[in-house]
């Protein structure tokens, strides 16, 4: 006779928080033990009821605006009020004579920084592209495509949210020949990211998502026979990789981008 289970364990069981061994053991017991089954169902029922009906208090718009303002860069110093040149002492007027030159130095400095940033960014994108391909290949080789296998995005989204510090969009693609296989968590760009896995025809498509600032249009690259696309929107950075044909790849990428929009 198996030992009596206490409510703590049952609660941890329905939360999926027991170690794998105990988790499987209880699942096996559930098959035969009707009393235990009722208890587990009662607990799950209660959890469902709370999740479905308890108020979720989203931040009011006014609060959000106030806090976003906290995070806004401080307003730049107010421009000096224009005055007639005669109001200025001679030294200041002489300084102002240098102004065009100073301004051109300023512009040059800004351009140099921008160019450096652009080069840095493209170097970063290339490195990231390598990481994305590596993850795709690893997952395909080891046949470990998904941690949570489900064609239902309502199952996959909470699973991912519970394991990440953000809630990734999990779009359903309404494309012919496309199947949603599920999701997994991977480590990319120095942080845990969500990976959504689709099958397009005979090919696997991996779609990576993590929070990132800025907005950028979709950029397509091909490396070593893989097609890559990346873009940022709505606070999320997306990278998609696959070895499908370029045409199909573009279709899938746009479907992911548009589905994301409607979520």
């Amino acid at each position, binding site marked *: 006779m198996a030992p009596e289970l*206490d*409510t*703590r364990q*049952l*609660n*941890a069981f329905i*939360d999926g*928080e027991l170690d794998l061994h105990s988790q499987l053991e209880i699942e096996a017991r559930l098959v035969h033990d009707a*009393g235990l089954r*009722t*208890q587990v*169902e*009662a*607990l799950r*029922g*209660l*959890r469902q*009821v*709370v*999740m479905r*009906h*308890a*108020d*979720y*208090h*989203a*931040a*009011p718009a*006014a*609060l*959000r605006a*106030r*806090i*976003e303002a*906290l*995070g*806004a*860069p401080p307003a730049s110093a107010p421009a000096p009020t224009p005055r007639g040149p005669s109001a200025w002492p001679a030294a200041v007027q002489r300084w102002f004579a240098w102004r065009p030159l100073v301004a051109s130095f300023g512009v040059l400095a800004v351009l140099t920084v921008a160019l450096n940033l652009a080069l840095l960014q493209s170097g970063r994108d290339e490195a990231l592209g390598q990481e994305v391909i590596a993850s795709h290949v690893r997952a395909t080789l080891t046949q470990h495509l998904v941690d949570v296998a489900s064609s239902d995005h309502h199952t996959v989204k*909470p699973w991912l*949210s*519970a*394991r990440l*510090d*953000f809630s990734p969009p999990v779009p359903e693609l309404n494309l012919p020949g496309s199947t949603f296989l599920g999701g997994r968590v991977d480590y990319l760009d*120095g*942080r845990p990211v969500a990976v959504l896995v689709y099958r397009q025809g005979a090919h696997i498509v991996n779609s990576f998502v993590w*929070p*990132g*600032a800025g907005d950028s249009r979709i950029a397509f690259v091909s490396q070593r026979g893989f097609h890559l696309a990346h873009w940022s929107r709505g*606070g999320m950075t997306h990278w998609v990789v696959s070895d499908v044909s370029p045409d199909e790849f573009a279709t899938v990428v746009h479907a992911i981008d548009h589905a994301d929009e409607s979520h």
Partner: protein
Amino acid sequence: MTESDDLRRFEILVIPHLDAAYNLARWLTRNDQDAQDVVQDASMRAMRYFGGFRGDQARAWWLQIVRHTCYAWLKENRPAEVVAFDDGEDAWRELAAPAADEPHAIAVRNADRAQINQAIAALPIAYREVLVLRELEDLPYKDIARIADIPVGTVMSRLARARGLLRQALLHGARPVLRTVARSTPGGVK
């Protein structure tokens, strides 16, 4: 550059989890205005504490600050609600395992929105917070442990007890006679 780094961090770490922050503060203070004040205060603290953020689990880190701010606020404004909480290792044992009879399960399942909100709001704060973080934010135990500053084992016991108490409250609420719970709610918590 540090200032703009901080602003960027603020955008990435704090803003995306503003709903979670407000939801937690709202359930802990049980009042809209107080929750807004707390979240705003917590945001300013977060900006000061970016140095202490080690780059993992932004949401847990940020909710930890929100919770801490809530407690500080409650201690000052409603000290009675945050008396040192000692639930003992075995408090969860006092509640029977979920009764395995169908009518009870149905009563719980049929509880309506108002009943559920009342029942959660009436839970002692230490149980309320783990329940809200688990059921409404869907956080794993280790994150809840970090946010509530308790060991994972305590998360387990408190959650078991929170659900037990909630279940009891819903069963009573389902009966025609509404008791103390009903009296204290209409005006909101003062």
